[in-house]
């Protein structure tokens, strides 16, 4: 008896789908077999059918008005998905310009290695720069020292 009740509970939840053609295959066969032997579920199915008949019978047959399609087509943005000829040409021009720039950059990268004359060592250039910076820092230290003397009276 418990198993039968469980089956009824599961089947009741499937009856709307069964009536609408959602259920197929083995599940459909099992439901049909169950309904044949179960008055409760049979009654439930009939009530769903009755409710459908009642509600459909009380509903209004409403159709779209004449000229509705024309109204819609008049109000949509017909250019929204248009692939314009101008856009195609502009895209091609942009692509061309990009390719030219890429080519120039590649050319410059390939030729940059030979900018420095071979006689000059890169490290000596760096050393010279660092020495110049150090000299400037020393001079700056002297300047700040004189300013402090003036402010604090040599203390």
């Amino acid at each position, binding site marked *: 008896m418990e198993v039968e009740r469980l089956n009824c509970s599961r089947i009741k939840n499937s009856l709307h789908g069964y009536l609408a053609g959602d259920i197929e295959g083995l599940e459909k066969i099992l439901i049909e077999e169950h309904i044949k032997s179960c008055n409760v579920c049979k009654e439930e199915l009939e009530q769903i059918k009755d409710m*459908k008949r009642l509600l459909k019978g009380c*509903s209004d047959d409403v159709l779209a008005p004449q000229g509705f399609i024309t109204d819609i087509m008049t109000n949509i943005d017909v250019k929204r998905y248009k692939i314009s000829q101008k856009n195609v040409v502009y895209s091609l021009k942009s692509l061309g310009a990009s390719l030219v720039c890429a080519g120039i950059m590649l050319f410059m990268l390939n030729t940059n290695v030979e900018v420095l004359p071979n006689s000059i060592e890169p490290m000596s250039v760096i050393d010279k720069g660092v020495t110049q910076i150090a000299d400037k820092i020393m001079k700056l230290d002297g300047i700040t020292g004189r300013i402090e003397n003036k402010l604090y009276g040599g203390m």
Partner: protein
Amino acid sequence: MEKLKDEEIIVLILKGKEQLYSELVLRYQNRLFSTIYHYTRDYEDAKDLAQEIFIKVYNNLHKYNNKASFSTWFYRIAVNSCIDWTRKRRLVTVSTFETDENEEIHILEHISDDTPSPEDVLLKEEYKTTIKNIVMDLPEIYKTVVILYYYEDFSPREISDILNIPKKTIDSRLYRARDILKSRITNMEYGGGAFEL
């Protein structure tokens, strides 16, 4: 010429053949109108809302990604628009539950012979209106599944896809909605059973 599928028409529209959208409108206009009317209960409002939905669908065609059928995707937009419309309007329908129950019984007593008199026709129309109002009075989650299942013949699986809600939830909402409808129709006290039309 072989009829194009909805999805094929969309591909062509997105390639610039926007005039083909009229074919989609033709295919869906009546069914959409019927669905919308169950929400609005007013023809002019239904017309405005239908137009709004078709334009919204057109403007979002580029977002359609073929994961669901076009029909499901279309009705998803439509039903959400109808629900939004209802919430904005906050329709208050005059429920017949507030009417005098004695008045209802008194009206029924006049339905006597088989030949429908003009009065009978009027009473039947009033009954139909009552039933429609009962549906309109349902909480929105039940009203939507009732409209889609009982009026528009969508299956629970299709409703699940449209509303993006698990099928089990749809099944239990349909079950619960039917219980509520049964109870309210019976409570109208037309002799304890459903009226045969």
